[in-house]
């Protein structure tokens, strides 16, 4: 058993995702408390160079294998399980992302390790790992104590600043042999599908009016579009609007959509699920309209309105036009 804090590095198309640096920064703080080292786990093929960007770690464990060239839920889980079995770190931090979701619960079962998911904070408290999860659509925080001398926490992207974990350097790189049969998988990666170019790139807009489930019907979209026009901005949306095919995927803000940082983010009828907040919370000015005063969007908004959007939006559009 060690006191080390492991961080599973996430990468796509040869680029380390920012969430990795967020976790590395946090791991530095935690390892200081546990008296262990920060170890980054890098799995892939031909990406050993990336270790140089993981300078916030004391050591990088690198597993190279053709079956790890692209993320694969099965080969990556097998590889990570093997690494955790060999090292038994005090704590393993995994991003609670699309990729991380396929890993954290898998190693929890395979290695019989406690897991807490959707964490926005992790601490050592009297030698125990305590994780705070954001549950019930961001309406309730749940603090869990993890038992045992090795456990896993999957952490929501955006929970910690990336800067603390963004250090170039040359951490010691230790190459780990892949477990046998890593390429004998029942899941096979085929290819990546890039998003289609849209009419509007919402990541480049200064002003976004973003519409959510509160709009109720596709017929009400023009009303919000008119507000966007009056403000000189573009229309964006939360996930349900895109799932309903009312707007194209290129307009979707959030975890599986785009991350935006406009000067003004005007949220209309968006409750603010954690997946949405992740994509817009760094906007310079956030104004939100939602009839539910408990809606999590008001946690990140600077200004809030709980009046009916069907009254406020036309009134605002009219005043802007006059």
């Amino acid at each position, binding site marked *: 058993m060690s006191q080390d804090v492991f961080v599973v590095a996430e990468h*796509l198309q040869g680029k380390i*995702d920012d969430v990795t640096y967020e976790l590395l920064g946090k791991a530095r703080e935690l390892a200081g408390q546990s008296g262990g080292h920060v170890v980054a786990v890098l799995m892939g093929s031909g990406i050993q160079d990336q270790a140089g960007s993981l300078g916030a770690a004391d050591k990088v464990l690198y597993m190279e294998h053709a079956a790890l060239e692209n993320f*694969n*839920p*099965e080969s990556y889980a097998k590889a990570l399980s093997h690494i955790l079995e060999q090292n038994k770190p005090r704590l393993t931090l995994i991003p609670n992302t*699309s*990729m991380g*979701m*396929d890993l*954290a*619960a898998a190693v*929890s*079962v395979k290695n019989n390790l*406690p*897991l*807490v*998911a959707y964490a926005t904070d992790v601490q050592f408290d009297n030698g125990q790992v*305590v994780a705070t999860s954001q549950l*019930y659509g961001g*309406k*309730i*925080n*749940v*603090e*869990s*104590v993890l*038992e045992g001398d090795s*456990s896993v926490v*999957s952490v929501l992207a955006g929970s910690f600043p990336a800067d603390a974990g963004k250090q170039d350097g040359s951490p010691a790189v230790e190459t780990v042999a892949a477990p046998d049969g890593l390429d004998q998988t*029942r*899941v*096979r990666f*085929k*290819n*990546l*599908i*890039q*998003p289609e170019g849209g009419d509007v790139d919402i990541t480049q807009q200064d002003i976004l009016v973003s519409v959510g489930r509160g709009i109720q019907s596709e017929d009400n979209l023009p009303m919000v579009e008119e507000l966007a026009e009056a*403000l000189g901005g573009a229309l964006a949306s939360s996930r349900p609007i895109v799932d*309903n*095919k009312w707007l194209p*995927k290129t307009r979707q803000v959030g975890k*599986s959509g785009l991350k935006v940082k406009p000067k003004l983010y005007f949220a209309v009828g968006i409750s603010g699920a954690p997946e949405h907040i992740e994509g817009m919370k760094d906007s310079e*000015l956030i*104004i*939100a309209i939602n009839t539910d*005063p*408990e809606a*999590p969007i008001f*946690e990140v*908004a600077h*200004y*809030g*309105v709980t009046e009916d959007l069907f009254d*406020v939006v036309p*009134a*605002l559009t*009219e*005043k*802007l036009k006059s």
Partner: protein
Amino acid sequence: MNIIVPVKQVPDLVEELEINEDGTDLDRDYLSYKLNEFDEHALEEALLLKEEHGGTVTVIAFEGEDTDKALYTAIAKGADRAVKITNDLPPGTPNHVLAKALASVLSGMEYDLILTGVQAADDRDGQLGVLLANYLDVPHVSVVSGVAPNNGAVTVQKEYAGGVMAEFEVDLPAVLGVQAARQTPRYAPVSRVRQVMRQAEIEEVEASDTEAEVGSSIRRMFKPEKGAGAQMLEGSPEEIAEQIIKILQEKGIKK
């Protein structure tokens, strides 16, 4: 293709959630429950696959608040079988335990595919589908938004950030965590649900194994801190509009 869809009732997030006196659980006395919305998508995708390629859809739920209604509604939408797990596993039971129970029930059933919602609002200890797949030792992919059969396997699309997707081929049987069905989940008219309640039968089974090592416990539940949040604008719609315009002018966004 024979598809199993495990579904779960979760608190309706539209309503106000209160925490109990111990501060370790929701105050569940007056909570209303609804089907996890991602499970609705999993069911829709299963029904679409059945309509296109034949086979059956079996919906499985744990006994609890409004479970029967959820199961009858699933049949009204087109599911062939509804199964209720009768063990005492109240809302808030950790997913490790639910997954273990499901695995013990499913190990006696024939299936090609298990579709679960990618996540639920109360997944404190990890996502049900991934846990279930690992207890069953079948492959899994989560955050899936497209499924198509392909020579005894399925081709699936998994969503990453920024609109990028990865395509995988997955051998069957498999567990998929569905993010979104190809179309909006269908609606079952109340009259049809009533008719199903008179005609259809819900099968009851008991899970033989509910022993899972969770390894964590809830110490405290609390609502996110207020105060740091938004400054609320009050008044008539016109007054609010004027306040907003003033803010935009102050920030230099609008002249």
